[in-house]
């Protein structure tokens, strides 16, 4: 936050540099079930962010000393592809991605019925293919769809969304310049059904009122994103049902052959 600049982030009409209104999200596109090998997956575009999420599990947690005899552990690995940012990022986890992996793991754990799978691990892999501010919220949103696609029992989906402060105004879903030159960023994640906040960070400079307004704005927007998640899953189920029909048909063919 807070690099100095002459860029005017909000114009006279209250519009943002990419033409959005203060409470407007960037365009979001979600597709579930995009990978074959993973147990569940999702692809998400959020503005210029491009994110893949994959889920494996529940499977045996290893190494063994990680196992919890009372519940499954949720292990998220958030990773940025080396080519996803302006200057090539060295492969492997840096400190930032370790922290993000941790808070996303905690947020996802809040909805997964982990007690159903003692000694197991539910592994979530988020790959940022192109980054453009807001990748942790995008990754978490995609991961939650991938978990549903994998059939992991959950209380609800989780939705990530950020709000922030730029040009002394509270706005939704900061873009890259807004993130670089703005005054505050508040990434959060909620469980839409209960309104519980399961991820919350903030950095910058905000009065309490501004902070509360930002949280409310992000909460409200996350309900819209929730609909996109559910829509992606509905499309996915339709395709799966179709494929299963075909599969059953072809299995019947095989049976006939074998007979």
């Amino acid at each position, binding site marked *: 936050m807070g690099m100095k600049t002459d860029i005017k982030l909000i114009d006279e009409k209250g519009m943002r540099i990419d033409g959005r209104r203060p409470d407007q999200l960037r365009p979001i596109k979600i597709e579930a079930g995009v990978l074959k090998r993973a147990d569940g997956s999702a692809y998400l575009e959020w503005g210029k962010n491009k994110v893949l999420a994959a889920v494996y599990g529940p499977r045996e947690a290893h190494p063994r000393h990680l196992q919890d005899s009372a519940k499954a552990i949720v292990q998220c690995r958030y990773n940025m592809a080396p080519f996803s940012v302006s200057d090539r990022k060295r492969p492997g986890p840096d400190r930032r991605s*370790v*922290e993000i992996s*941790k*808070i996303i793991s905690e947020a996802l754990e809040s909805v997964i019925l982990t007690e159903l799978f003692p000694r197991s691990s539910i592994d979530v892999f988020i790959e940022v293919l192109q980054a453009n501010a807001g990748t942790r919220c995008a990754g978490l949103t995609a991961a939650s769809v991938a978990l549903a696609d994998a059939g992991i029992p959950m209380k609800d989906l989780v939705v990530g969304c950020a709000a922030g402060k730029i040009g002394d105004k509270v706005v939704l879903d900061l873009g890259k310049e807004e993130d670089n030159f703005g005054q505050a960023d508040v990434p959060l994640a909620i469980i839409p059904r209960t309104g519980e906040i*399961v*991820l919350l960070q903030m*950095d910058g*400079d905000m009065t*309490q009122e501004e902070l509360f307004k930002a949280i409310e704005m992000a909460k409200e927007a996350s309900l819209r994103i929730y609909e996109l998640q559910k829509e992606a899953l509905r499309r996915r189920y339709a395709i799966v049902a179709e494929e299963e029909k075909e599969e059953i048909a072809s299995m019947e063919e095989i049976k006939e052959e074998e007979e």
Partner: protein
Amino acid sequence: MSQETVAQILRDYIYKSLMEKKRPDGREFFEYRKIRIEPGIVEVAEGSARVHLGNTDVLAGIKMSIGEPFPDTPDVGVLTTNAELIPMASPYFEAGPPDANSIELSRVVDRGLREGEVVDLAKLCIEPGEKVWIMFLDLHILDYDGNLFDAAALASVAALASTKVPAAQYELGDDFRLPIKNWPVMTTFAKIKDVILLDPTLDEEKVADARLSVYTDQNGHVRAMQKGLSGGFAYEEVKDIVKMA
């Protein structure tokens, strides 16, 4: 007894205590533990402070040298924060490179110092684009009884405030005190079932559902926040916590 049984007993004990409006160590829900600050105890470091927050014990040390600024901020000094959860402090800490917990700790403290504008970094420029003062803040956790965030944030600010910039050694005039701009405060709350507690001990952290740290400056502005653990907060709870912080 298995680890799970021990955990269950601890949970039951703390829940029962909280239902009776008592914390295991006798504190009020929104009462801090006793704080003791010892600044300057590592003389060889440019700055240092040891903070005892109850039985939590954190030593912060500052080493200063001269180096290049970051290309995108050529006229300000550089502050680098590192935290080591050394195995001395807890049977659960292991030797080795920083794990997710110590990385989160150092990053949260670092964001707090940065966003809270604790050090006036502009006064640490020697030659724009060429030479600036570099500060290494190292957090050494000596004894771990919960709420590392607040203890570490406090030790960091106290260590910075005690720091003398060794200008003479580099023939850059007299040594001078590190210019401190703000002295913001980190305040951490834990949620256990539906009870919110200030300054959790290790036992309380172990059974907590969620944690929220709020970094506020002298004007009551919020400068940084970090939620932790796998439970959630209702929005009203967040509001209450921020107002209290």
